[in-house]
């Protein structure tokens, strides 16, 4: 049973998260400020920590920094601050994910699971090997079996969606315009392309992303094209 430390100064939020995570089969440790969280971590190890930013005493950012001094467990920051700068700050100091309040409970659970899978899989990455296996973070594509996994969850894609994703994953970090994708996948010259590609991309995102509005893998470069972010 995996242990998750939840730290927030709002007791009701901690309780709600407790209910959700316990329901998913996790053991939950509760802390109401940074010092308490550090004390608990000293006594017993946790597999993941969810921490609020704005807390009395030691705040989430400094707690994260403290934890990172001794441990590499996944840390998810939970904050009412939703601006880009706050997210960037949180991720830069060592957090693995960032969820802004108010959050969707299902999203939270999905993200917790995703983080845990990646963390525990670090040891057995070679589970799937072969020339035609492409990996990008939690995303794995096996071109032999035409299978796609996100955090060990198998994903069902249509052939076109699969081809587009494969093209992007093969060229991780490269930006493809709608016309380029069209020409590569349909093997036709794009004549005044329409929104077919964009619609397919949206479908792929809905399938592989936890929150399609804030994609982790398939990113839109507005006015230029699409790309798979290097993890």
């Amino acid at each position, binding site marked *: 049973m995996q242990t998750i430390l939840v730290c927030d100064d709002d007791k009701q939020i901690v309780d709600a998260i407790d*209910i*959700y995570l316990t329901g998913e089969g996790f053991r939950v440790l509760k802390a109401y400020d940074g010092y308490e969280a550090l004390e608990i971590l000293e006594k017993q190890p946790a597999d993941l920590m969810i921490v609020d930013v704005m807390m009395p005493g030691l705040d989430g950012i400094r707690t994260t920094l403290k934890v990172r001094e001794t441990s590499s467990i996944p840390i998810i920051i939970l904050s009412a601050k939703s601006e880009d700068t706050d997210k960037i700050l949180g991720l830069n100091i060592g957090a693995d994910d960032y969820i802004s*309040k108010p959050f969707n*409970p299902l999203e939270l659970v999905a993200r917790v699971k995703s983080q845990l899978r990646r963390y525990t899989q670090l040891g057995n990455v070679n589970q799937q090997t072969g020339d035609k296996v492409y990996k990008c973070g939690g995303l794995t594509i096996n071109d032999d079996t035409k299978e796609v996994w996100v955090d060990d969850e198998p994903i069902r894609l249509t052939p076109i969606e699969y081809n587009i994703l494969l093209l992007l994953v093969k060229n991780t970090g490269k930006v493809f315009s709608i016309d380029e994708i069209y020409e590569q996948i349909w093997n036709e010259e794009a*004549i*005044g392309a329409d*929104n077919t590609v*964009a*619609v397919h991309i949206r479908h792929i995102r809905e399938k592989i992303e936890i929150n399609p509005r804030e994609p982790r893998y398939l990113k839109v470069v507005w006015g230029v094209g699409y790309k798979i972010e290097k993890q």
Partner: protein
Amino acid sequence: MKSIKPRYYSLQIKKNIAVLLHILFLFLAVHGISFIYLNMGTGAGISWLFEHNYEDSDAFQARFQEDLDHIFNYVSYRDCLESEGVLDLTSQMFAVSNRDGPEIIYTLEEVLRYAKSQGYYLNDHFDVVNDMFLYDNAAIDRNLRISWRAYMTDQKLSEPGDAYTSLLELSKEVLYCLSEYYKVHYRMIVNPSNLYFQIVYQNQGMDPVIYSNCPELSMEEMSSMGIFCRQSSDSIFIDTNLKEIPQNITMAMEKNDFYSAEHYYLMAAVDTRYQADDDYADAAREYELLHRRLLESAATVLVGILGCLATLSYLAVTSGFRDAERTKPNIHSIDMIYTESCVVLTAVCTLFMLFLGEKIGYPLLHLFMAYDSWAFAERMLRAVLIYGCCMVGAFSLLRRYKTGLLWKGSMTRHIRENISLYFEDRTFSHRLLCGYLAFLGVQAAGFGILGVSLYFLRFPAARAVLLVGLFLMIAADYLVYHKLFMESVQEDRIADAIARIAGGDTAYQMDTAGLTGKELAIARMINSIGTGLEHALQEQVKSERLKADLITNVSHDIKTPLTSIINYVDLIKREQIQNPKIQEYLTVLEQKSQRLKNLTEDLVEASKVSSGNVKLEMTQLDLVEMIWQTNGEFEEKFATRNLELVSSLPSECMMIQADGRHLWRVLENLYNNAFKYAMAHTRVYAEVVSEDGQVWFTIKNVSENPLNISPDELTERFVRGDVSRTTEGSGLGLSIAQSLMKLQDGTFRILIDGDLFKVKIGFKLVR
């Protein structure tokens, strides 16, 4: 304090000593100048400086010439007065006859007796004097006819009256001859003299006739004595070492040649050692003394002038301060009055002193001075008085200059300041009126003077006045023009400053240097307006920021309880309560809490965007590609409300400069807007066109509700197309979109035509 006081006193004492010394030196200089002036005689310049000896002087020259004349007279008269080398009283002097009477011969003795009887005799200087006046008809009656005169052998009687004379006249003539004879005889022959002379007339085979006081001396001996003069019958040349050749020598030699001598010569010499005690020796001694005194006086003048200058410069340097460090100003009561008054006072004092000098000083001088030198002494007194008074005034001015009071304490400045009162704090019209009246006055006065001088043009003075008047008028007119021009320049600068501030440069401060009077006041006011505007603007920006911060903080505080609400609503839902009413309530709760979430997020974004508190990452991107991407995102969403998205996009790229994420937010808001407010089962048109270097994206939809609202109002915060506000939406979408477009230098327009709602955004085409 103790250490300061002695210094202060010592400087004062030094100054007093310097003043005394100055007076002393002045006295020396005046004394020296007076001595030189009075003793030298005018006209000779300063050549006396180089005449070291008496022999070089004009006085010697005159005396020598005079003595030569005496010697020639002696030569003329000696032979008729002497026999055997001594004066013979029996010598026959002249013969006269009274009318037809017999010829009577008078001897010297008889003549002398007669002369004595008439009161004539020779004094101890051998001058003819008469100490009694006898009126004797016989004595002055010119009835004697002269037969001959021993002392005037070559007398030619050319006129009838010449031959008749009185006995008294003849006696006086004889006395005169005797006087001349004695002068030389006693001064040079009987008594030792420094003047040696030899006059020799010689005929072949006869004894030479010698007139001399030193017949034994040779030519060489005499010429080595010092000053000599030689002339002989062989030559017309006069050999002398005198400064000027003595006059009449050759003529006198010829005149006295009674013997028709074949050969004659004159040798006269002065022994410059002045061994004999005579007039020459006296004069030489006196001359030496005077010369020395003159040199001393010259030195005195030099020392006096140098001393005056030295003390004056010392006083000039130290005046105005109480101490050597020149920190404490030394101001006397005279320095407190106006500068101009000081000048006038000095002038008045000078005049008064001159008056006093005339009334008191002149009589005092007259007591001590010789009559000849009165005029000079009075002149010197006047000069000294003027000098003294002017010095007092000049030092007052100097003190003022050093302590900065010269201009500050001047009446001109006061008048100027008072005049500027007429111009400062007055309206422009008042100032213009004053200036114009002054101009008119000057002009009228000028033309008056010109007219009068033109009328009297034949007088040279009038012509001079005309020229000067013309010049002054041109100068005055130019001054008026210059003043007006400078004021206009200042006004131009003010206008420029106002234009800049009006143009939005509220931080602009005008340079007040070179501005005067009213313009300066206006410039200051403009600067304070600019400062006030800038201040207000910054206040506004600051308050906008504060508002944004407040909204952000409030939203954060709302979000935390909202999280619990959403979570617990979800938890209740999971309880699977079978009561349909509760399910319905839960749906409402879920919807509204979601709405609240969107509202708070939009609110934060709107306040951030409108206060400009967002980061921009401008990149080049293709608007066409972007619209395709956006269409892809929304097509299915539109389909849920049966909206058909019709795109009309060009096939080529339309590159623009924008921040992709912000532009996405704009487009997202516009598409969401269309999604929310478009009438179901209608088409939504999206098109991109380029014209004149601009790329325009337009989205059009038919509104479900009538749009009885102006486009401007739609972009106001919290304004929505549906007044009832029943639909989902914060009312901030268009406001955020507009603000973001403004931040990206784009154009944002809303057009409403009936129910047709149209939004147009434009960017500059990059290529």
